[in-house]
């Protein structure tokens, strides 16, 4: 997952050109498609209870009349039991409505990945700024810690931590754990950029003008780092969606009966021969969201990349 964000050659952008950037992103057809898909899934996630009420199927309503008990529980009817009542069919064994579970699963997937991204961006930006701006032993210490976190096998540690820590709130735990293992990537980017601009004229001018360090960091340095931070954020969302799904797939995501796409795919593993729709539907949703966020992130990076090498 790490390779998605390497090779980002984005530099600081003067704040005046933001409008031109949005125009350039909008001119990218991929970005428009990506944005449309993202908006669609966000709306679906928000409206999950509404749509679920409309179809009359809650995410945890059992429909045992929709499955074939004699055969061990595959859905009745073609394509995983797709019908006018169940637009995406039903789950094997218990006949829960797949549409409802997909919609509620979208909430989990998006919420966890967005908040985990926020966690890593906040930690990474703060520590990267401090390391790059102050240098010296602070920089050395923070850089060491970043190297160290990066040499941890993150997936194994996430699995171990989530399974060992008391699961009072599994969702919160997932957000914190996924977010924690992501911050060094952005920390490195922010540190590098901060070092490259901390001696620029406008920063020196602010310093000569007697402004304090915190004020310079927030008023002069941070605004000039927004572009790379934004690109990194956009590109790490799909990576985190993938991580959340992977953890759920391995059985350590949100706890049932709360649905998530990865968890549905895990269940689908034992049904792939009989009921392929059961893995195709959540898999496609996962694919589309990851693709959409990647398209958006790519477009942002391309718009900001001064060399245009991508």
């Amino acid at each position, binding site marked *: 997952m790490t390779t998605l964000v390497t*090779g980002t050659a984005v530099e600081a952008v003067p704040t005046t050109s933001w409008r031109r950037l949005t125009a350039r992103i909008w001119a990218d057809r991929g970005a428009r498609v990506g944005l449309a898909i993202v908006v669609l899934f966000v709306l679906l996630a928000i409206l999950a209870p509404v749509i679920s009420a409309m179809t009359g199927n809650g995410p945890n309503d059992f429909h045992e009349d929709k499955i074939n008990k004699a055969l061990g529980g595959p859905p009745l009817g073609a394509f995983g039991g797709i019908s006018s009542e169940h637009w995406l069919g039903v789950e094997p064994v218990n006949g829960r409505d797949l549409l409802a579970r997909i919609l509620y699963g979208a909430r989990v997937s998006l919420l966890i990945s967005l908040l985990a991204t926020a966690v890593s961006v906040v930690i990474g930006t703060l520590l990267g700024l401090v390391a790059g701006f102050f240098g010296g032993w602070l920089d050395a210490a923070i850089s060491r810690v970043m190297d*160290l976190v990066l*040499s941890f096998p993150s997936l194994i540690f996430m699995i*171990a931590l989530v399974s060992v820590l008391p699961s009072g709130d599994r969702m919160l735990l997932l957000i914190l754990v996924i977010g924690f293992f992501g911050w060094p990537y952005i920390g490195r980017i922010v540190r590098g950029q901060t070092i490259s601009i901390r001696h620029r004229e406008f920063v020196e001018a602010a310093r000569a003008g007697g402004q304090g360090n915190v004020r310079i960091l927030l008023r002069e340095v941070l605004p000039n780092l927004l572009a790379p931070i934004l690109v990194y954020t956009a590109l790490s969302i799909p990576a985190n969606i993938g991580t959340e799904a992977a953890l759920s797939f391995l*059985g350590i995501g949100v706890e049932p009966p709360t649905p998530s796409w990865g968890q549905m795919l895990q269940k689908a593993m034992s049904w792939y*021969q009989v009921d392929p729709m059961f893995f195709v539907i959540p*898999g496609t949703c996962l694919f589309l969201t990851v693709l959409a966020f990647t398209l958006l992130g790519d477009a942002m990076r391309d718009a900001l990349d001064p060399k245009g090498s991508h």
Partner: protein
Amino acid sequence: MAAYLARRLVGLALVLLVVCAVTFAIFYLLPSDPALQACGKSCTTERIDMLHEQMGLDKPVWQQFADYIGGIAGGRTIGTGELAVRCDFPCLGFSYQTNRPVWDLLLDRLPTTVSIAAGAAILWLLAGLSTGIVSALRKGSFLDRSLMAATLTAASLPVFFTGLMALYLVVQVAEWLPFPSYVALADDPAGWAQNLILPWTVLALLYAALYARLSRSSMIETLAEPYVRTARAKGLPERTVVVKHGLRSALTPIVTVFGMDVGTLLGGAIITESVFGLPGIGQLTMDAINKSDQPVVMGVALLSAFFITFFNVLVDLFYAVIDPKVRYA
């Protein structure tokens, strides 16, 4: 060069020591008691206390940690009394649930994981690099745009989705291949490859896509370097310009990522192994986690951290060989 190597190896040992300490802290300070798990259902307080003592869990944490490190360095006897077990070098602890030293468990599973990782790595490196280079050379062409659309798609497909898709289409519907199971390379090389071809392809698809994107942008960047123009100005044939002068520098970021990815995978191709039911380190991890077999989880964590840092050092050494600036620094 020797001094450089020594410095890097000391760094490697230090990183591993810290990883060890952090792992130790996570697993032994958290509210979950291995003695309680080893004790079983009908557990009395006396028996718990006895187990604590015999497993060495009554000692102070730093003492336990020192014992652990000592065990890695030279083997040790874990615990006392009826639970005393000999754990030879390199002792990564003892799994009371399987009644075997962790190191033995890891050694059993390593060949599977190495087979998966190595085969997939070769595949994705070849496919990813060639796609990326062709795309870079034809930047902006129809071919480039099609290849990049394909890699974007492949990069967005999680392994557990493509894995299930492959199982359904190739094994179930078309019946081209049997359901993968692990056959040792030494026993039956053909069977080994036949069983692994599906996991290799599925895993390599994702990485090949990521590497194609990375090598394309890296190649485009180096081809715009002034020294590539110099090579052309010398009248060198285009092939020499691209391979000798362009690719050589474009490889640098790819090697970094490659070391990282292979190191990570060697610590367990968790998803791939669980989709295809292959008995590698990843599956061992998941089993251990589900059974709360903490010594095993810790051993796996350490082994993966070792692989990641070790490959980092390898990459750095590789740079020292190919990049004169590092060599003479």
